[in-house]
């Protein structure tokens, strides 16, 4: 990236801190409008049922209730929701998600009736007064059951419950490489279902003005323009009459990409009732009705030589999609998963088939990492298993296979952009003192202590994405990003980005990019996002795309402004444009630095407009829609050291170290924060979290009590290091750092735990590795008896 760096690369505290940390943020629940009423949703009592009748009469009579609305009311007024990622060549079925169920419910999050009342307490009282008569239908929650002949049918459109069947082959035929292999390691791996559980639950407020026929919806969204587009379609109103505002959003992790029934319902009712309507999800609803993540059963085969060289990987996956196909859902276990199955390795054959399977559970969609953690888990787990079978050190197996450096065209056809894969790997091992820990491990083993070391190397595709590729895979729109930068007459700058950061801190990092490009103070730059009336159409924040794609748009727009400013400066200084230099916020004539004007002078001149060159319009702003040429490919190696209690099997993480190459780091403080948070979420999957359904489709982990999100006391200090190889395909060189931690930490920690148990002959245990799950696996395999009483 050309230009002076006064802000980029510095640990600058978030501009948003003052507002967010002092409680001055504005979340959807903080919106209070005159005459506002409150909606509450009755959700299905059964995971699969026919609705025989709904008696709302008692509820309607409660004082303060404006009305009770069922599927009958909505079915002709609002179109059902459909996925926006209609995979091509995958026989994708048109699964419809009615905003309020009619005739049938398909999971316990399905909305059966909506109450609107003067206050939320009355609304919840009224929910209890609604009587629904259901005819329960057979339920299926498990993917392996759901694809068996005779399994309960969830949608008529998808016979056998298969919503899509996606196939991908890269490189040589798997059978062919397997024939050349010395061994083929097979495993059935479970990547368990997780619940995003953002701190702020979802919410929506809708207000309709019959005079202007304009509908305004405040909603918890990671992509307000996408929300507007899809909602306008579902509601049947013109897109330009719908304004979507996503104010401060308290985390999403992917769960706020989805356009949900809730926001569509309140929008419709605000129009019909002529009163603003608010709905704020309860935490229980958040667990039941907001998308879940992961949930694969993967049948994996790895063909390898005795040297540890991996020739091919074959994966057959049943991906649990839940009861409906979410907004981005079909792309997650396919494009974002299958294409990553070569990892940072010189694998010669990748063969993957994925069935997207419908079940009577909450829909599964993009959750932090989205597909890439699942792929990385498979490779990293299998490499450890392979190492064990071959009697090799897991580090050596990775050395045998790792790509030296990029650019590199992977067997999947992806062009890995840049990086020194081997060097970063060795650096991580060195910094983590890998070999010292190996010594500690064998010493302590003699004393009965169970210490394990785990490595995970990963590569991911982020910076989603080149539009031509997104479109080729069936994505509903392009995946560019937009920005409008407006310089005001005083030289202060407003940046209206199409991204929608919700905790990541781009109000700061984008301001750093602009301040450096224009030579202004970071305090003079304001980043605005989230309101479709203010910002150009944008694709939003997910897939670690905000900095590489949104930030690149910002940079290009800032450069465009600087170039226009240079022309104005030339006119003001009565010099030729080629002779104008720019430094520290001043334009000056080459060779005579005393002849200069400030950026602020130029800004004012752009608006006074009297001295502009004849071909230049007044004003100083730029709009850029930036469509990247390629994905970016962050990569790195993480190392975890754990100790397993030999009596209780509780795992303690003794050390966690990450070396990540996410290209140019705009703000190390924010980037480290992303690594820390991501690693914690990765550890959470490895050791704590899992969503459990009973056979009837009831979610048994529908709250923080039962769903174990680790606390600050459960997680270690995370040591984070960066290596910066600039991304060659975008102008700022950034690759994205939002998901690396979640991708790497899960296999690093699982590998470490299994490493601690390796000498006992345990090869694999499915996650989460809670003390009980470890104990159970050891018990079932007879290892527990070996450990004996002495422990």
């Amino acid at each position, binding site marked *: 990236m050309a230009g002076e760096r006064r802000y980029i690369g510095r640990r600058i505290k978030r501009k948003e801190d003052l507002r967010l940390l002092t409680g001055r943020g504005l979340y959807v629940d903080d919106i209070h409008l005159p005459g506002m009423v409150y909606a509450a949703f009755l959700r299905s009592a059964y995971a699969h049922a026919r609705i025989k009748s709904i008696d709302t009469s008692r509820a309607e009579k409660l004082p303060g209730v404006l009305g009770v609305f069922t599927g009958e009311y909505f079915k002709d007024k609002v179109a059902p929701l459909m996925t926006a990622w209609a995979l091509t060549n995958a026989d994708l079925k048109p699964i419809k998600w009615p905003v309020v169920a009619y005739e049938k419910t398909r999971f316990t999050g399905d909305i059966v009736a909506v109450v609107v009342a003067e206050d939320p*307490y009355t609304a919840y009282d009224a929910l209890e007064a609604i009587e629904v008569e259901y005819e329960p239908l057979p339920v299926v929650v498990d993917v392996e059951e759901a694809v068996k002949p005779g399994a309960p049918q969830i949608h008529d459109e998808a016979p056998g419950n298969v919503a899509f069947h996606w196939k991908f082959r890269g490189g040589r035929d798997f059978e062919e490489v397997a024939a050349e292999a010395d061994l083929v390691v097979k495993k059935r791996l479970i990547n368990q279902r997780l619940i995003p559980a953002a701190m702020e639950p979802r919410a929506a407020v809708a207000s309709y003005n019959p005079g202007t026929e304009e509908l305004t919806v405040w909603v918890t969204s990671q992509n307000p323009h996408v929300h507007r587009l899809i909602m306008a379609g579902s509601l049947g109103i013109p897109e330009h009459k719908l304004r979507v505002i996503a104010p401060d959003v308290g985390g999403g992790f992917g769960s706020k990409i989805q356009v949900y029934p809730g926001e569509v319902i309140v929008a419709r009712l605000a129009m019909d009732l002529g009163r603003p309507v608010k709905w704020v999800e309860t935490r229980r609803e958040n667990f039941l009705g907001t998308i879940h993540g992961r949930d694969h059963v993967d049948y994996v085969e790895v063909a390898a030589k005795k040297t540890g060289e991996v020739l091919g990987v074959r994966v057959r996956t049943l991906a649990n999609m839940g009861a409906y196909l979410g907004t981005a859902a079909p792309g997650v276990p396919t494009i974002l998963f299958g294409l990553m199955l070569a990892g940072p390795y010189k694998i010669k054959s990748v063969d993957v088939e994925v069935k997207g399977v419908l079940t009577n559970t909450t829909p599964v969609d993009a959750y932090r990492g989205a597909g890439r953690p699942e792929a990385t888990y498979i490779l990293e787990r299998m490499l450890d298993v392979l190492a064990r079978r071959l009697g090799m050190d897991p580090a050596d197996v990775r050395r045998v296979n790792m790509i030296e450096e990029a650019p590199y065209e992977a067997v999947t056809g992806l062009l890995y952009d840049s990086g020194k894969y081997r060097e970063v790997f060795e650096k991580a091992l060195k910094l983590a003192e890998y070999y010292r820990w190996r010594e500690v491990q064998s010493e302590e083993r003699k004393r009965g202590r169970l210490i394990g070391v785990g490595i995970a190397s990963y590569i991911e595709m982020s910076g989603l994405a080149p539009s031509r590729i997104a479109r080729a895979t069936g994505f509903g729109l392009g995946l560019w990003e937009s920005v409008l930068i407006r310089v005001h007459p005083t030289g202060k700058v407003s940046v209206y980005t199409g991204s929608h950061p919700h905790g990541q801190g781009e109000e700061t990092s984008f301001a750093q990019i602009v301040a450096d490009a224009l030579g202004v103070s970071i305090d003079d730059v304001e980043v605005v996002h989230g309101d479709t009336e203010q910002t150009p159409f944008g694709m939003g924040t997910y897939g670690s795309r905000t900095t590489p794609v949104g930030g690149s748009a910002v940079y290009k727009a800032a450069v465009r402004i600087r170039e226009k400013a240079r022309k104005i400066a030339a006119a003001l200084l009565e010099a030729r444009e080629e002779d104008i230099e720019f430094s520290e916020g001043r334009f000056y004539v080459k060779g005579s630095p005393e002849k200069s004007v400030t950026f602020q002078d130029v800004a004012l001149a752009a608006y006074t407009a009297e001295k502009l060159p004849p071909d230049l319009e007044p004003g100083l702003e730029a709009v850029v829609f930036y469509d990247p040429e390629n994905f970016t490919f962050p990569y790195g190696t993480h190392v975890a050291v754990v100790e397993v209690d030999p009596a209780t099997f509780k795992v303690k993480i003794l050390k966690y170290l990450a070396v990540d190459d996410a290209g140019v780091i705009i703000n190390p403080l924010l980037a480290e924060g992303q690594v820390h948070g991501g690693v914690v979420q990765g550890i959470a999957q490895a050791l704590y979290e899992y969503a459990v359904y009973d056979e009837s489709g009831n979610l048994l982990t529908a709250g923080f009590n*039962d769903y174990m999100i680790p606390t600050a006391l459960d997680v270690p200090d995370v040591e984070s290091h960066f290596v910066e190889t600039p991304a060659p395909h975008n102008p700022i060189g950034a690759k994205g750092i939002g998901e690396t931690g979640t991708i790497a930490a899960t296999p690093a920690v699982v590998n470490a735990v299994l490493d601690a148990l390796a000498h006992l002959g345990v090869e694999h245990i499915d996650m989460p590795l809670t*003390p*009980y799950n470890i*104990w159970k696996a050891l018990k079932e395999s007879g290892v527990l008896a070996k450990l004996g009483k002495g422990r």
Partner: protein
Amino acid sequence: MYPASFQVFIPASLEEALELLAKYGEEAKVLAGGHSLIPLMRLRLAKPKYVIYLGKVPGLSYIREENGTIRIGAMTTHGEIAASSLLKARNPLLSETASRIGDLQVRNMGTIGGSIAHADPAADYPAALQALEAQLVVRSVEGERVVGIDDFILGPYLTDLQPNELIVEVRVPSLTGAFGTAYEKLNFRAGDFAIVGVAALVQLSPDGSKFEKVRVGLTGVSDKPVRARGVEEALEGAEAGEEAIAEAAEKAKEGLNPPSDIRASSEYRLEMTVALTRRALEKALARARDKVA
């Protein structure tokens, strides 16, 4: 998470609180720290018509020693019990147990009276209270009675408390001599209720050679907190040492039928009861030995 409608009373004296309870008894709930009651109300699993808040009743929060007994007011918070220097010196089992309850926020709000009255089968205090053979002072408009912990907690969320009664005080011994105590709690995530909790009290002979008295209280492994009497009997009078503990700890699972749930099976809990009993007793023994010298 909106509770059903209810009416709140804020009595300013114990008498007033008891009168309100006498009047509204069955339909009322007293509110102490609220860390068990409010979650239930928010989920509408509890729908009391009346809520009687004890926070403004004076004289229910104290820790003091009288004639070899430590008296603790029912409204004393877990945090106060964890930090009490009196308890740390004279009954460290209770303060150690309190320090392992929930997280800081829970300990700052929750009260010992509330925890006992709620009778969660995995609550921490009851293990210690069993090991300490604690007495509870219960009062109503009709008068006061003193009940042993073993007779008070009857089952999961079930106690001997009558609708018009309040717990006002908890009594535990002030320990002397060569004693040692320890609370071992296994949970999978910090701040969670116990999968298994074991409270141990060891009293050694003055020369430290023999177990004079041993008490072991268990939580999370039965429908109510219990004592591991088999372990106690095996150790009392025996030579003080780790071998004896290892052997006796096996008896901790006798007669137990722990629950199975999504976190862990009954069998795992049984095994952990033995493992934690051993660890708790070993720690208690080491601490008692420190007092012998």
